[in-house]
Structure formats: structure tokens, C-alpha cells
């Protein structure tokens, strides 16, 4: 427990309109501490002007996403020992493809607004195998499942930062939002109008990297593919003069 690693931490800094640059801090820290702990220590003991995003420190709020040695991580659950070794260097940068406020903080509220537009539910029923036995759900009646939980997606923006399509087309609504649409309870015309466009589900280039960095089991890439399947089947139905699926549901 008392073991300490000495690390060199390079932090990307940017205040106001100045050019981004790196500041280097040397830090003694336990390998079992998190990357966010390291950042908070730099702020507390070395440089009070360092800006970084954080709130819950246990992966439920999604505020502390950063690029750690070039890879998107939710820093509150990323242990130092997972990303470097004793004497190693950690390079911390803000997420890409979102507006930077300063240093390591990006503004996630544009993402929140998009999630609201596609009506991603922030709370939904608990599924089977999540601690609720199927017979319990059956007892309560599927429609009246008394177990609800907060959604998987914590709107952290890691998937948007890693996405190569988002990198070159800022208008692309991004993996989190498309996954949010796929999870929306009603895929109405309003949601379809956002998703079924060039900057929606068809912009994805199948790099699957969003699912690789997602810290919260959302699997955005897989959901984008399910969404494509849904939209394609609707188009095929329309072509043959059949009713679309969501009209039928109503």
C-alpha cells in the first residue's frame, strides 16, 4: 500500500486564446491511485490554475474523460498501474471534437442537448440478468416492471473524441447520440429526421473504436449498426408499400 511510483505527467494547457502547450509535473503517487487522483493532486499541491472536469469519481457522471497517452479514458476508474509503469510518463490531453474550456476540460453540454433531441431516456427498466430474475419481471408484468435504473450512457464524450468520422466532420452527431437514439423508447419522425441523414447514422465509418473506449457498456458502434438495420428495413418496407414499423406499433 505504501509503494509509490514517481511519474512525469505532461498536461496539455490552454488558457483563453493561447496556443495549447504541455506543462510537465513530477509526482509521487501510488500505482493503485487513479489518473484523476493524479490530476487532482497536481491541482491541490502543484498548480492551482489547472482546470479539469470531475464530479462523482466513480464512473456515474461522465465528467472526467481525458486522453491518457492518446487513448480516451474515464480517468476516475483508470488506475495509474493500467496506463504506465514506475518512472513512466503520462501525457494528458482534453477530449477531441468538443469545445475546450481550458486545459483538460471540455464542454459536454452540446452532447447533452443532442441526447435530449433524440430522446434518450436517462432512466429505464432493469433488464433480466441484471440482478432481476426473469420470473420476477414476469410476475410484475413486462409493462409494469417495478425495477428501474439509470441508463448505461453517462454522456462522457469518449466515443465522440475517438471517432475518426467526428474528427473530420464536426456536423456528425456522433456515436453517443446515435446510440441514444437507438435506445429511445419511441423512434418517432422527429428522431428519424435527425438520425436518418448524412450527418447521422450514415456518416459512421465502422471503425468500432467508440465501443472500445466506452467505459459504460453502451457499445455505440453495435447500436449504430442496429439502427441502420432498422432504418434499412423501414425503407425496404416503404418501397414495397408496406406500413413502417413504428406506424404499425401505434
Amino acid at each position, binding site marked *: *500500500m505504501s509503494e509509490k511510483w514517481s511519474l512525469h505527467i505532461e498536461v496539455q494547457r490552454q*488558457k*483563453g486564446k493561447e496556443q495549447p502547450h504541455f506543462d510537465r509535473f513530477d509526482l509521487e503517487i501510488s500505482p*493503485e*491511485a*487513479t489518473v484523476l*487522483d493524479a490530476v*487532482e*493532486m497536481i*491541482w*491541490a*499541491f502543484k498548480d*492551482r*490554475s489547472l*482546470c479539469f*472536469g*470531475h*464530479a*462523482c*469519481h*466513480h*464512473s*456515474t*457522471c*461522465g*465528467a472526467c474523460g481525458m486522453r491518457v497517452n492518446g487513448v480516451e479514458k474515464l480517468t*476516475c*476508474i483508470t488506475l495509474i498501474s493500467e496506463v504506465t509503469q514506475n518512472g513512466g510518463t503520462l501525457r494528458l490531453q482534453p477530449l477531441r471534437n468538443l*469545445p475546450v*474550456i*481550458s*486545459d483538460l*476540460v471540455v*464542454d*459536454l*453540454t*452540446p452532447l*447533452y*442537448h443532442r*441526447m*435530449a433531441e433524440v430522446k434518450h431516456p*436517462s*432512466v429505464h427498466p*432493469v433488464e433480466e440478468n*441484471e*440482478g*432481476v*430474475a426473469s420470473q*420476477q419481471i414476469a410476475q410484475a408484468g413486462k409493462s409494469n416492471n*417495478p*425495477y*428501474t*435504473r*439509470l*441508463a*448505461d450512457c*453517462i454522456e462522457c464524450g469518449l466515443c465522440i473524441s475517438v471517432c475518426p468520422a467526428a474528427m473530420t466532420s464536426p456536423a456528425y452527431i456522433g456515436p453517443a447520440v446515435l446510440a441514444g437514439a437507438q435506445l429511445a423508447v419511441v423512434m418517432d419522425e422527429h428522431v428519424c429526421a435527425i438520425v436518418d441523414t448524412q450527418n447521422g447514422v450514415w456518416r459512421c465509418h465502422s471503425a468500432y473504436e467508440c465501443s472500445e473506449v466506452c467505459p*459504460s*457498456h453502451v457499445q455505440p458502434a453495435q447500436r449504430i449498426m442496429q439502427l441502420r438495420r432498422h432504418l434499412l428495413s423501414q425503407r425496404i418496407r416503404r418501397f414495397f408499400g408496406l406500413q413502417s414499423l413504428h406506424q404499425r406499433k401505434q
Partner: protein
Amino acid sequence: MDKPKAVIIGAGFTGCATAHDLALRGFDVTVVERGPIANGTSGRTHGLLHSGGRYAVDDQESAVECIEENLLLRGLVAECLEQNGGLFVALDESDLEYARRWVQSCERCNIPVEQVDVKQALAWEPNLTSKILAAYTVPDATFDPLRLALTFAATAQTNGARFRLFTEVEGLIERNGAIRGVRCQERTTGKSSELYADCVINATGAWAGKIAQMAGDATIVVKPTPGVMVAYDQRLCNRVINRLNEPGDGDIIVPQRRMVVIGTTSFEVDEVDYIPVFEDQVQMMRECAIQLIPAVAATRQRGAFMAARPLIGSSASGRSIARTFKCFDHQETHGIGGLVTITGGKATTLRAMAEKTADTVCAKLGITAPCQTREYPLRSYREFRGSDAYQ
């Protein structure tokens, strides 16, 4: 007529809720916060919307506050709540002993408690230890801390309140024995600025003593009392599981998303800007969690974190200090005008804390405006506008 101006220091639960309350009462509100929303104690809570059961025996004032606010918030912030309820479970003779007093106390505090068959409890929560001797349901719930604060902030912002995040208060502006504003520095640019107000509200929780000292008032003592919480990587229960006994270490397990979070410990510190997570406490939490939910033993740890409760100082220590909140008018405590401090309390009572604070501020400024936050519908947390909040 110009609106009365209020500056709130701190955008945690209390600060955001107070901004909402004062904006509704016609104030021109500015919230200054040195970091992002809810980056201190508020963000790092357990996420438990208390039924009040935990406090029913020893701290009935807190228990009553909790159940009242709990039932109110269910309707107001449904968007960031898991409303699955909670169970209090007894594991041994001493728990059963405590249960009798506890049930009576809950009745007195109007906390709806119902005993359920042990078999029923185990059917609901199959991962719960089969050793339970008794189980009671309570209306606990789980909340998302950042989103709860953002809900109040978004509503306040919609009603005209301004948020200035990453803006650190460096000093208070004093004129003729009264606080008239704050001097602050924008951490994103390094620029300094001054904000004037008819009333400054110190909503900095565990840091409230420091701000009070800036005003020269050392009478307010806040004892930052951290506790550790540990998150495990699987949703092992759907209800909040409470150990049915005196409040103690590691006696509450809260489900959240695909996790369960166990907490907590209690010790005192002086410095709260950085509190390390102690490995022995994490280990202790794991052992406590295994007692209630044995499957924790086989579950990967996802995170461990520390948060400092802002307990209002007295000679008592730790858990025996009441968990209720207090609002101080510094005119009364130290003869300083224009400054109000709100501290203590807990997440569940954020709205009530804001109401009390706004009442105090209104009384101070001779303003009559009723509190509307009990019924005023809140906006979605997703409506918070970062473009207006980052300076």
C-alpha cells in the same frame, strides 16, 4: 426597480438549489464556483436519496427532513432517480434488538416502513445474504449526483441565474462592516474580477469555515468528515440495502447503473482539497459489503473515492454530530452584514436547505417572496448551457 442581487459561492447541491430558489423569488443570481458543477462533496456522494431510516433513532430532525424531501424530490427530479426503494436487513441478534426501537422511531418520523417476509426479500434480491433474520422496506432511492445538481442549475439558468464556473473566490469585498461582494479569479484565463451583491451566500459546504474566515468570522466551525465509498462492477441488487443497526462503517449498499456502491467510513481531517483514498478502508468496505451481499467477493472493484461531509462543528465527533443543516446570518454570529452561510445537511435535503437559506436572505433584505420550489417543475439537466457558464 432593480432586482436584488445575490452572489452564491459554490455550485454544489446547496448552491445550485439556492440559485434556483432565489431566481424564482425574483433575485438577480450569480453563482461562482472554482471548478465545474458538483466537483466537491456533492459529486462524490453515495447517491442515496435517504428515506430517513438511517437517522430515525438518533437524529430525528434529520430523519423527518429526509422523508419529507425524499417524497417531494421523487416527483421533481425523476429524470435522475432510480426509485426502487430500499431494504433494512437484520443479520444478528443485536440488529433484531435495534429493529424494535427503529420501527417505533420511523413511525414517529412518518417514514413508511413495512416488514416483509425474509423469503420475499430474498426473492426480490437473490444476491442478498441468506443469513438475514428480518427485512423491512423503506422508500430509499438512488440519484446521479452530477445530474441532480445540474437539474437545479439548468432550471435556475432558465430563470435568469448566471453560473460562473472555474471562478475561484479570492476575497470578500467589505464596506462599512458589511460584505458587498466577492473578488474572484477566472481559472480559465487568469483574469480577476469583482462582483457586487446585496447579499453573498456561502454555500461551500466543507469549505464554509474558510469563506467565513475571509469575513473574519471564526465562530463557524465546519468539521470536514470524510468517508470512503467503493464501487463494484456489477449491479448486484436493485434496492438500496441497509444494515439494520446504529449508523456505522460500510452499512449501506446503493445500486447505481451497472454498479453497486458501498459506504462509508467516518474520520476527521483539516485539509479537504485532496483527501487520499486509504487502502485499509477500501478493504474494510469490501468485507462489510460481503456480509450483506456475498457475491461482492467475486466482483471486480470499479472505483474508490472519498468525500468530506460538512458536519457542523461542536464538541461531539463523527457520526454523533447531527446530520441536519444550519443557516447562519453573520450579522447575528459576528455582526457582519451581507453574508449568509449554509452548511451541514446532506444531498437528500438540498431543496430544504435552499428554502431555509432563501428565507434567511429574504428576511435580511426585507423582501417578502414565498418559496415556490416545492411545486415548481424542474427543467431537464440536459438543458444546462455550458456556453453561458464557462467564463
